């Protein structure tokens, strides 16, 4: 049954996909060009001469891939979910049809995963064109990106279904997503941070996602840490899903 909820979101996406090209695709490309190439020239000529023995562009590209998966997923899980609860009320319409709460949540999450998969694939092709990624192992960053997207989307679904207005989203973006984007290893290794903050960074799901993507793209990942990262992300998906189901039931059924 969740497939019916999914196909609703796909149908509405087909009407607006052009607009999402800019935010979902062009933005990370511009970031990669500015940071990887422009700023990269400074880093590569800097005191350390690159990062972890590779050029800055090579270091940065997998980080942005993971961060973009996070941002796409969070964006798709905030306003669209609140809108479907409160303004356009698509969820109410779906519940009136014979769909249950799990169908709504799973159907919509699969759609978010789909969006993440599309933007990540496009971005990966661009990084290859930039010469930033050359390993075939990098193909595995796509399932990692989707997993990352779900690890963020599921808990944010739970949060969004409890909101009454966009105020809480501003807080989420400014105090959680933006700091994660800037400090979880995307732009520089977390070892640069003071020890206490380094530990905080390592708790964030984004750090695990960045480590996985970077390890695959640079061919430095080994099996045991990889499984650890995946397990940690799966934990977020599972806990988030459980919270999301509870939030949705509370908001829509009770």
């Amino acid at each position, binding site marked *: 049954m969740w497939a019916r909820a999914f196909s609703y979101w796909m149908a509405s996406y087909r009407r607006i996909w052009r607009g999402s090209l*800019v935010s979902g695709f062009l*933005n990370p490309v*511009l970031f990669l060009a500015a940071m990887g190439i*422009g700023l990269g020239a*400074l880093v590569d000529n*800097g005191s350390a001469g690159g990062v972890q023995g590779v050029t800055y562009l090579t270091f940065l590209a997998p980080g942005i891939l993971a961060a973009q998966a996070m941002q796409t997923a969070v964006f798709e899980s905030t306003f669209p979910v609140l809108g479907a609860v409160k303004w356009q009320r698509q969820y109410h319409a779906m519940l009136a049809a014979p769909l249950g709460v799990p169908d709504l949540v799973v159907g919509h999450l699969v759609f978010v995963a789909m969006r993440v998969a599309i933007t990540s694939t496009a971005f990966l092709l661009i990084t290859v064109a930039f010469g930033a990624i050359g390993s075939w192992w990098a193909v595995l960053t796509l399932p990692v990106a989707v997993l990352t997207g779900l690890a963020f989307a599921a808990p944010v679904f739970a949060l969004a279904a409890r909101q009454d207005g966009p105020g809480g989203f501003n807080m989420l973006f400014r105090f959680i997503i933006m700091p994660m984007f*800037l400090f979880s290893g995307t732009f*520089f290794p977390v070892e640069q941070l003071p020890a206490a903050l380094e530990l905080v960074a390592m708790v964030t799901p984004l750090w695990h996602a960045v480590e996985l993507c970077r390890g695959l793209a640079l061919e430095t990942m080994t099996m045991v840490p990889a499984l650890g990262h995946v397990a940690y992300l799966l934990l977020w998906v599972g806990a988030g899903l459980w919270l999301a189901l509870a939030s949705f039931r509370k908001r829509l059924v009770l």
Partner: protein
Amino acid sequence: MNAAQRVARTVPIPAGAGMARALVERNVRAYKHGWITLLSGFFEPIFYLFSLGVGLGALIGEIDAGGGRAVAYASFVAPALMASAAMNGAVFDSTFNVFFKLKYQKLYDSVLSTPLGPRDVAVGEIGWALIRGLLYSTVFLFVAAVSGAVESWWGLLAVPAATLIGFAFAAVGMALTTFMRTWQDFEYVNLAILPMFLFSATFFPLATYPGVLQWVVQATPLYHGVALTRELMLGDIGSGILVHVLYLAVMGLAGVIASAHRVERLLLR
């Protein structure tokens, strides 16, 4: 058309009652309810400063800030972040917020049925964007100074400089907003803002760009904002500063006049 109407059409500035401050007062009151949003706006540029200036800065070390002078990367990037934050804040206020008030809340319809005129609306909204910008810039400059990213006492003038940047972008942003029809049109705002944020000699020096692109970069308004703020915070004072100031001032004035005209055309039909 009588004489008075003819005069009103010839003078390029639409009517107002000199009451723009009443609209500023309204915005201050509205923000008291959303103060936490106001507060949260302080943090974004500061997060950027620590991420790029401190975290990434350690990998970069010192860079050439022009004229063979080497400065820490944090000192190089801090003014750029201050200027970009002034632009982002002003654009957000004058596009999203104004669009909401114009199309959904119908705020200006009720304002214009009082003695206030279109000029008051334009001046009031842009003035409010400036006040917010002034607050943010002051806090940012303080944090930057404390973290050692300000090299000169001239840096104090970076606050009025950031306010001027806010003025230029708020005015043009508001004028453009009056042409927008749906929220989808805001993609175009992002399409203009993000490349400027990334490529206006913000994160790396102008000399890094290939020759032709240097000309393009120098034509953008944010370039002048960044250069102005950077020259002040590095204490690198020269006549070039006047060019930056003039560019931004002209842009702002043109924006105010255009905004007032557009508000008049849209609402006083």
